[in-house]
C-alpha cells in the first residue's frame, strides 16, 4: 500500500487557508492512485507530528505544499515527522532542485519518501501559465501580453526568490508571452512598481503563493494600485498607469496544482498508473469562472 501526505501550513486564524490543500488532495483521491491520501498541517490538524500514524500504508510519499525550499521544508517538517537521519544536504539542492529523500519515520517504522516542495517542481511552470489562462479566460493568452510572477522574497532566505526566478526564466524561454518578469513583495524588483517593468498594455500578475490570504488578497492588490482599499475589491482587469492588470490571485488555488503533487510523488517512485493524465484532464481550465463572451480577452 502507498499513501500520499500533503503537508501544508494551515492557519489558526483563517479558515480558508487550508481550502486549496483539501481541494488538491481530493483531486488526487479521485484518481485512486494512492490507497490513502491525507492532509497534514503545521497550524491545523492532523499536525505533521501525528499524520503518519493515521496511515496503514507502509510506503508514504510526503509532498510539502510550500513554494520554496527553506525553513519549513528543511527544518520544521522533517523534525515534526521524526525523519531520522534527515539532513538538508541529502536533497543536494542549490535552492530549486530538491527531488526526494527516502527515510524512516521513527515513531511508526514506515518508509517515508520526503519530496521537495511543489513550488520548485518544473510542472509548476505549467500551473502558472494555466493560472494566466484562467484569469484572462483565454487559453491562448501570451501574444501582446506581459506576465509577472510575484513572490514573497525575503532577505533571510535566498531560495524564496530563486523559485520565482526559476519559473519566470522557464516561461520566458517558451517565448509565449511578450515579456516575463519576476517581482517581489519584500525585495527588488518590487511588485509595487509593476507597470514600470512592462511595455505591454496587458499584464497578467500571478502570485506564487499556496493559498489566498493577507498577502494575495490585501497587500499585493493595494501595493499595485488595483484598489485603494482591498475591502472594496478590484476589477479584473484593472487600469493602472495606462496598463491593464489581470490579477490572478494565489497560483495555489489552480486545480492543476494536484498534478504537481502527483509529479513529486512519481519522481520519488510512486506507482501512479494513468493518474497524471487523468488529473490533467480533470483540471484542464478549472477555476476559470463561467466565460462571458462579451468580455474582452487579454491581448485582443
Amino acid at each position: 500500500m502507498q499513501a500520499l501526505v500533503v503537508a501544508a501550513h494551515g492557519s489558526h486564524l483563517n479558515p480558508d487557508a487550508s481550502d486549496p490543500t483539501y481541494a488538491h488532495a481530493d483531486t488526487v483521491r479521485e484518481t485512486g492512485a494512492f490507497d490513502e491520501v491525507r492532509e497534514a498541517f503545521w497550524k491545523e490538524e492532523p499536525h505533521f507530528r501525528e499524520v503518519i500514524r493515521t496511515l496503514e500504508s507502509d510506503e508514504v510519499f510526503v509532498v510539502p505544499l510550500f513554494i520554496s525550499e527553506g525553513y519549513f521544508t528543511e527544518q520544521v517538517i522533517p523534525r515534526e515527522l521524526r525523519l531520522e537521519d534527515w539532513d538538508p544536504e541529502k536533497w543536494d539542492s542549490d535552492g530549486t532542485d530538491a527531488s526526494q529523500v527516502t527515510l524512516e519515520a521513527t515513531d511508526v517504522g514506515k518508509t517515508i519518501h520526503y519530496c521537495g516542495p511543489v513550488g520548485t517542481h518544473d510542472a509548476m511552470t505549467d500551473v502558472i501559465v494555466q493560472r494566466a489562462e484562467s484569469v484572462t479566460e483565454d487559453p491562448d493568452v501570451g501574444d501582446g501580453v506581459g506576465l509577472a510572477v510575484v513572490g514573497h522574497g525575503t532577505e533571510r532566505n535566498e531560495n524564496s526568490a530563486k523559485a520565482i526566478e526559476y519559473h519566470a526564466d522557464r516561461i520566458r524561454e517558451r517565448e509565449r508571452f511578450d515579456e516575463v518578469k519576476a517581482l517581489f513583495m519584500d525585495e527588488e524588483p518590487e511588485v509595487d512598481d509593476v507597470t514600470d517593468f512592462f511595455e505591454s498594455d496587458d499584464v497578467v500578475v500571478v502570485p506564487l503563493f499556496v493559498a489566498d490570504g493577507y498577502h494575495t488578497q490585501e497587500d499585493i492588490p493595494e501595493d499595485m494600485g488595483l484598489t485603494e482599499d482591498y475591502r472594496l475589491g478590484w476589477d479584473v482587469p484593472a487600469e493602472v498607469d495606462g496598463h491593464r492588470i489581470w490579477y490572478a490571485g494565489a497560483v495555489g488555488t489552480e486545480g492543476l496544482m494536484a498534478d504537481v503533487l502527483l509529479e513529486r510523488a512519481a519522481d520519488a517512485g510512486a506507482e501512479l498508473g494513468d493518474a497524471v493524465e487523468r488529473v490533467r484532464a480533470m483540471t484542464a481550465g478549472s477555476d476559470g469562472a463561467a466565460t462571458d463572451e462579451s468580455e474582452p480577452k487579454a491581448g485582443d
Partner: protein
Amino acid sequence: MADSLPDHESLLAAAEEGVDFDGFVLERTDDGTYALETPEARETTLEEGELERALESIPAFVSNWRYWDAIGGEGTARRTFLRWCERAPIADATTEGQTLGDEPLEVPERHDALEEGIVREWGQLRIAVRLADGGEGERRYELRHVDDADRAREELERREDPRDARELSTYDEEGRYRPLKTAPTLRSGWVLPDLTGRALVEAVDFFYPATIANWHRERRGELDVDHWLETAERQTGIYDVIDELPREAVDWMAEACCVDSQCLRRREWEYDDDDALEAPGGDGPFPCREPCSLVVAAARKWAILESEAERTYELELTTSELNQLAELIDAVADGRTDEIREADVNDGANRYRARYLRAKRFDENGGLEATKRE
C-alpha cells in the same frame, strides 16, 4: 475502497487454515469432514451438505465472521475502532491508563444488540451501528452530534460524504472558526446516516484527526507521550522562546487551555516525566500526547509576557469595582459574555456596567488610571 463480504466458498477456504473468531470455530479435519464449534455446541465429522445446514442454524456467528473478514486490517486502529463501536471484544487491549467502558458483548448477544443499534460516544460525536438489510452481516454506521441523540433523522441536515465532516467541523454554532478540532464546540443539526466502516473512520478522522490512531496506541500501551519540556525544547524559529516559560506558568497554561471545558482530548503530557501538572487531564476517551500547535503558539505569547517584571501600581477603586474586575475576567474566561442579559445591571460583566466603569476610571490614554509605585 469497498470491502465486499466473503461468500460461502471463502469460508470453506478459510476453514482449511482453521477459523477461530469471536466464539466461532470451524476446521477441516484430516478425514475431509468439518468440525464446527460455538460456545453452545460442538459438531464434528460434518460432510459439506451437513455443514451448510449447521451454518444456517448459527447465522449470527457466520455473518459476524463474514463482516470482520471483509473489514480485515488485523491489528490496525481502523479495525479496533470499529470493534469498539459495537462493543466487540478487542484482542490486544491492555487495561492500563484507559477507560474500558462497557463490558464487551459476545456473539450472539452482540448480533441481537446490532439489530436494535449500538450507540457509542466519541467526543461530541454519537456513533450508532446496526446491521444492514440483507442479513449478510454488513454494518451501517450513523454519525450525528451527541446533542441530537433524541432528534428524528428527518429533522437533521442529511449528509452522505464523510468528507463533509471537514465543512461541518470548521465553524461553531455562531459561525466562528474552530482552529482546535477537539474543542467542545462542534455544531449540531446534521447527520451522516448511512456510512460503511471505512467511511465512518474517514469521517471521524476529519472531525477529530488522529484521535483514533492515538487511542489505539494507548490501548496497546504504546502511546508515545511528549511532555511539555521536550516539546518546548524541540521548537525553533519564533517558538524557540517557549522553553523559557516559567514552571508555574505551564500549570496556568494547562488550566487555561487543556481542561475538558476547552478541549475534549485527555491530556496525558505533563511538565516532565516525573513532574506532573496541577490541572486535571480530563475524562475524554482519546488521549492528548503532546502540547498542540495552539498551545505552542499561545505559550510563545505567555513566554514573552512572563519575561516582564512585576510592579506595584496604585489606583483608586471601590470594593465593588475591584470585585467587578474579577467578574469581568470570569465572564470572558468562561465565554459567558453573550449570555449576560442586556438590562441585567446586577452582573458586573454586563455591558452597561463595563462601559460605566470605563467612563469613570479610564484616563485620557484609554487605560486604567494607575500610578506605578517606585
